[in-house]
């Protein structure tokens, strides 16, 4: 922070860059991303009762590696009858 309470330009640039790159690096277009999410829900639903509203799916690039992370709250396991 500088004298007038404004953030340093270099910090603003860094924060903006990081946000821009999160978007740029997410490799799937939004529509395809939604389809992927649906597919994952459908497959998992064969085995688990899941809380669909709390699924968190992210694709990130870190250190030049792409990581797909899915956090899926499982309510219960479905048993074969």
């Amino acid at each position, binding site marked *: 922070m500088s004298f007038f309470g404004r953030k340093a330009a*270099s910090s603003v640039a860094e924060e903006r*860059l990081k946000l*821009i790159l999160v978007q*740029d690096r997410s490799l799937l277009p939004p529509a395809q991303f939604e389809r992927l999410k649906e597919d994952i829900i459908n497959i998992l639903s064969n085995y688990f009762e899941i809380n669909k509203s709390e699924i968190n799916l992210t694709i990130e690039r*870190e250190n*030049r590696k792409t990581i797909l992370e899915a956090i899926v709250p499982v309510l219960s396991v479905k048993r074969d009858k």
Partner: protein
Amino acid sequence: MGRTIVVTAGKGGVGKTTVTANIGASLAKMGKSVVVVDMDIGLRNLDVVMGLENRVVYNIMDISEEKCKINQALVRDKHLTSLFLLPASQVHTKDDIDVDKIVEIISTIESSVDYVVLDSPAGIEKGFESAAAPAKEALIVVTPDVSSVRDADRVIGLLESKGVSAISLIVNRYDLNLVEKKKMLDYNSIVEILGVDLIGIIPEDKAIIDSTNRGEILVSNASGSPAAKAFENVAKRIEGENVPLSDFTQARGMFWFLRRER
């Protein structure tokens, strides 16, 4: 068998051509045989930066179209006897490029020199692709601003997908004074964000404007200037020498500009 390095950036105007000329000249000063290739078909400029525009007869498209031999198109530098320019065509467009032919030409040249340095055009289209195709190594030129770093990130991703894995970063036009006032991005942030190895930091240096206007390569014309020293250090690091980035990590205070990068 030599090494083929592409100098690229994504964004235009960040100094690819200046970096190509100066790294090529620095390697030649170290006794290496070097061919610098202008891959900006239709918008050539490396000849002008090197002051060789009046000596250009043939170009890389003439070789590709079998109108001349490779040796006929090479232009020797005015000062350095082991530095050669292979000019781009000014009358063709990127659509005229035959990528396979270019790869073949560069590989022929590579087999008889120490280094081939390819000056890539801006953008990520065919011009960039044909500049990257013959290279196994890449130097990414970035200036400390959001647009340039963003474009560099995209280009690094594309190079990796094409199998160019030896990618190093040159931070160009770095103004330590502005960085210390926290007005300009710090090189550490850029390196961390992009996740590739840093091979050099080139300080903002008015001597570059003077040299370019005269058609002289900075490292030949003003070898004592801060940017020239930095370019020569990059060349040494390319050659495998361990040259520390001392100046930019330790310099502090009002007289930083008096210090010399070693």
